[in-house]
């Protein structure tokens, strides 16, 4: 029996699950947290990005046994009490998504970007967000949404990207 801390809750994973299983598949198949997406399995597309102790990481590259004892946040854990974060709101307002499949990973990475750089330039965004593929090509809107979220956070006088007041 292994214990995972995900979105502030503890989850037990049974012994029937191979400890080498990538966190991605534990989230999706074992725990039913399907917001984290499978795209490539080799750390290339970043659709499966989660936060491990606040830092973005491709969950297809993190074995279950290495996730034990870490603080893990998934896309399902961003909004608190149904209150969307500034990044999530900006993603809706800029109507970023086309198919939407990569966007959970994009949002997780953009959230991490704004936590370390509250007012990124286009170049900062391009550099940081290049880990994530959008097959539909929504990059123009991803840039705009990150700027919009940064402005909202600045206007709200807080740099916390989680649970906008």
């Amino acid at each position: 029996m292994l214990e995972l801390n995900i979105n502030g809750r503890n989850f037990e994973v049974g012994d029937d699950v191979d400890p080498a299983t990538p966190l991605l598949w534990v989230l999706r198949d074992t725990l039913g947290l399907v917001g984290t997406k499978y795209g490539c399995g080799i750390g290339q597309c970043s659709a499966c990005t989660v936060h491990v102790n606040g830092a973005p990481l491709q969950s297809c590259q993190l074995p279950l046994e290495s996730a034990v004892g870490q603080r893990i946040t998934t896309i399902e854990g961003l909004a608190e009490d149904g209150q969307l974060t500034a990044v999530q709101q900006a993603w809706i307002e800029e109507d970023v998504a086309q198919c939407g499949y990569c966007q959970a990973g994009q949002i997780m990475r953009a959230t991490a970007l704004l936590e370390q750089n509250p007012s990124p330039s286009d170049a900062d965004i391009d550099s940081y967000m290049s880990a994530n593929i959008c097959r539909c090509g929504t990059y123009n809107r991803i840039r705009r949404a990150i700027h919009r979220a940064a402005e909202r956070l600045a206007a709200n006088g807080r740099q916390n990207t989680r649970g906008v007041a």
Partner: protein
Amino acid sequence: MSRQVNDFEHDAYVPECIQEIRAERRSAMALSRRGFIKVTGLAGGGLALGIGLGTPRAASAQAGASVFDANPFVQVRPDNTVVIFSKNPDVGQGVKTAMPMIVAEELDVDWSQVVVEQADIDAARYGQQVAGGSTSIPSNWMTLRQAGATARAMLVSAAAIELGVDAADLSTGSGFVIHAASDRRVAYGDLAGRASTLPVPDAGMLTLKPRSEWKLLGRRVTGVDNEKIVTGQPLFGIDQRLPGLLYATLVKAPKIGARPVSANLDHVRSLPGVHDAFVVEGAGNPIDFGVGVAALPGVAIVATSTWAAFRAADELAVTWDESAAASDSWSAAVAEAGRLAGENGAQSLADKGDVDRAIADASATAEGFYTYQFASHADLEPQNCTAWFKGDSIELWAPTQTPTMAVPAVAELLGLPAESVTLHQLRGGGGFGRRLANDSVCEVALISRRVGRPVKAQWSREDDMGFDYYRPGGFHSFKAAIDGAGRLAAWQDHFITFGRNGLPISAANLSASEFPVNALPNARITQTLIESGMPSGPWRAPGSNALAFAIQCFLHECSVAAGRDHLEFLLEVFDGLPAPGAGGGGRGGRGGFGGGLNRERALAVTRLAAEEGGWGRQLPAGRGLGLAFHFSHQGHFAEVAEVSVDSNRKLTVHKVTVAGDIGPIVNMSGAENQAQGSVVDALSTLMGLEITFEGGRVEQKNFDRYPILRISQAPEVAVHFIQSDNDPTGIGEPAFPPAAPAICNAIYAATGHRVRTMPLTKEGYTI
């Protein structure tokens, strides 16, 4: 409105399944005067219309309140919310938002009171439910308007009775029926019960809103699934879960077309988490693209998790029968095409005027040999489907683009009546034509039947890229003549493409009237087939996605040979197109399914792209502008690219300006997003996306060798629409084709280097 519907146009690059939808739309238009009921295949009238439409919400059912199921698209609830059912799959093209907007406009409700739900898959009620060929909007435009207008008329009639006034004295707005004379208004929700008892009016007799009265259409409306997307709620095919669900992978032969003979099944069955492993014979013809029965053969591994299935696949050892497998070699095809380039083609596709005379008389000529690559769809959500076989019926959860074709396919495959096949439509994480095929649906149906339990068959990324219906590569050997006035006088193209059984493989054909052949007095098109065993199929803007690159780049070569400005030269070529109204059923005609290639619309978008893109500006050395036009899927698009290239051939695409005419825009946000994404997709494909194969084996299996464009490489894309007074047509595809040639023409302007091979990595470019 005097549009003709009898000059319906055959589009040479649209797959047969989509042609059928267009034909259905044409007959629907012809029937529209007989009313909307006939159009949608509905039987009966009055309340019968609403039978089985959606499930009334528990709350309203408990309250005993009346829900007005006006027709298969509209349900008005007592709380004044309106449910609009979106009939077609959404794979990222935005129809789940755009199609209900059309209904809401005629129903005259506020968008804030609308709840959109995915419609049941039911061809008897909805006709074909398909996402393909950019047809959702044009095929359903009139039907959706009539659905809204019919429901509105019934609500007005109900209010006339309630208020004891003449219906003619009533108006509507924001979900209320209004009697201005007495300053009274009744919410639609309060009229639901009475409206349910009224006869359905003849839709052909209703007056639809003139464009000047539209409140919703043309506005920016954000996607109806956005909140689920940004919070990670279950939505996509891959997200489907069921009690007792098993997870399967079907290991397919690395050599296309090989079949399994035997495998170490006992060993695989003994591995952790493995429920079963068995050989799947496959079904239909999975190599030739189609929307019907098709399943690749292979070895299925069914396990308790996706990872357990994938891990077990690593230990699977299969003996394959490769006797009937493909042995294609891309490098050999390139060499053969190079040898053929100087010859005339084996078949004649078009021969008009006197090309030889025009070339002999030319003041200048141009020649160019163009090559483009095979490409994979690479939907970010790998192919998958979930099925639950229950003995005498099957339930499917599928992110397919062709659900109403998947149902009969599975019925045929399993020997079940179609009524015993239920398909739940789920959102697709990208489509681009890949999900037109139902191979993943058929595959999981076979696996679930074998294990008798609910199963999700998940393709790995390697499976998805390795077993695609690829965009076919091809080659064009061009020659053109410029006359003494600097005009394009003749056009010759030896098209070298891939074929089987004497015909081009799917999406590898060239229309005999492809622009600019239809605009010139002298043209000769010949074709030679290179024998191929590769699976190919429609890939976003089939045909056009590659033809525009070759043709629009070579047109630029012609203008350079003529010593002319490319804008001026291109506009002059349009002059040769038939005038509007003179088409008589062919290109250049007006009306029907968007009206075909139209000279005035082509001129207008090209001028607008040039104006907005700053055509003619002086730019510093190493920086240049390029222009291209293409007509496809009834959309007229011109694009101007601004690029710079450094001495190491590192390319920067600064900006692409798009000008398009698809008639009135339904959802401005969605339309602009599609155009922006099309340009990014086209640059991605132009730069580095290439599928190669040797010995029938595909060489790229994941994104490490198939580099989808990243945000740092993506240009700014500015989109401008001319909202002409034509019926609206689709936007999922037609903005794609002009982007690559505009960028290549800009590279020439910046450097003087002509690129004739896609992807540009072959010519030493990086981005």
